[in-house]
């Protein structure tokens, strides 16, 4: 597989290496730092993410929409006393929208979008089981915990159908709290207990089946599929760490 594809990189590196960049971006207050981080992550995703179809559209337009919505929503909440020296854009009764408030909202929106994009570097290019395998071999996580994670991934579709059955059973018996968000919440907490009880019971059965096959008898376990940790992962980690230094300096010059 090509060096250019993010899918060939180590999952643990992809999850952990962007974290310092996220922290630098969260800690910034200007417009350029988060914008540059977000742009770099977006370019990396577009060039080497191998995205197509709906995901590609969501990555292209999602952040723009997010920034636009947050610019207004956080701008409205900004303390007017801080920004009343800037230009008043609109007045609606007692409320005035200042351009400075929008700028603060824009900075917040860019910060959130940059963190989301940095998280998506791993999120859109990683296969769940591969991440667990890599955590077992490279982070020294005990394999029994990792295999509990594998089992949990297989639990999800089962529990989803369980939830559907419980929902239908409640409906057949006429357990209906009415409409509206409060009633929905109450209805959901009614599903929680049977679902959890069934889930724990299923977990019991699976654990018996696993132990019957000798799971956990040995200290180590051989993996059929090996997730490599290569030189390209070191390059990716260095690049993302270097961004933490480069981006604030570059944005200071802009």
């Amino acid at each position, binding site marked *: 597989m090509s060096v250019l594809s993010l899918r060939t990189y180590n999952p643990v590196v992809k999850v952990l290496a962007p974290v310092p960049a996220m922290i630098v971006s969260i800690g910034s207050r200007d417009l350029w730092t988060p914008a540059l981080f977000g742009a770099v992550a977006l370019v990396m995703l577009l060039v080497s993410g191998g995205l197509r179809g709906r995901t590609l559209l969501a990555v292209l337009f999602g952040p723009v929409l997010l920034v636009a919505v947050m610019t207004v929503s*956080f701008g409205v909440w900004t303390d007017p006393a801080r920004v009343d020296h800037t230009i008043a854009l609109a007045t609606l009764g007692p409320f005035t929208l200042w351009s400075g408030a929008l700028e603060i909202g824009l900075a*917040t929106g860019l910060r*959130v979008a940059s963190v989301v994009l940095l998280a998506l570097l791993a999120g859109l290019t990683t296969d*769940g089981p591969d991440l667990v395998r890599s955590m077992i071999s490279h982070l020294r996580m005990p394999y029994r*915990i990792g295999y509990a994670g594998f089992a949990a991934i297989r*639990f*999800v579709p089962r529990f989803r159908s369980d939830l559907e059955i419980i929902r239908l059973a409640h409906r057949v018996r006429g357990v209906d709290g009415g409409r509206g968000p409060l009633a929905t919440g109450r209805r959901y*907490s009614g599903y929680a207990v049977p679902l*959890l009880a069934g889930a724990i019971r299923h977990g019991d059965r699976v654990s018996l089946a696993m132990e019957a096959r000798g*799971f956990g008898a040995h200290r180590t376990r051989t993996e059929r599929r090996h997730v490599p940790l290569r030189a390209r992962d070191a390059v990716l980690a260095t690049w993302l760490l270097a961004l933490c230094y480069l981006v604030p300096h570059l944005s200071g010059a802009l």
Partner: protein
Amino acid sequence: MKRLTTRFLMACAAIGAATGVLLLPANFASFAISAAVPLAYAAMVGVWLIGPVVALAVLRRPGAALLTMLIAGIINIPTPAGPSAIVTNLMVGVAMELGFLVTRYRIWRPWLFYVTALVFEVVYAASAYAYFNIDDMAAAGKTFFFALMAVSAVGFTWLGLLIAGRVTATGVARGIAPGTRPVAPPPAPVES
């Protein structure tokens, strides 16, 4: 490692997966709502606490919250939060464990759940402070933001404890929590 029986691990996996399935719509909704109405985000923060609270209250073992949140994070990989959800989840799990760790896992009373949840919320609020730039909000908004966070932490902890109590009453977790092991039958009298 010896105390991590497969049954305990699978119970954590089951709680992690089940709360994940229940909260998946809430996760998407909270992401969408929090972008539009920042204050709603504060109200949704407590949702994260349901999983670890249920796990700790039902299983009553060290590491229950941590394992449940790790597994819930592994399940969340295909969501928009991505694998970074694991990092966030582990943070919540560690925070919920801390309160029980300092009391050496001897106290399982409801007040400890509430205190731990509130302490976590204070720490979390500090990070949200920088993330959402709350410093620039109007004073009323600021106060409201933190009050909402505290209310949501307490409210969702209450909900978690309520669910946990009912799950315990079903008896499915019997034998996992130490001290609730069924009493062994007395040894059969020796036949003479």
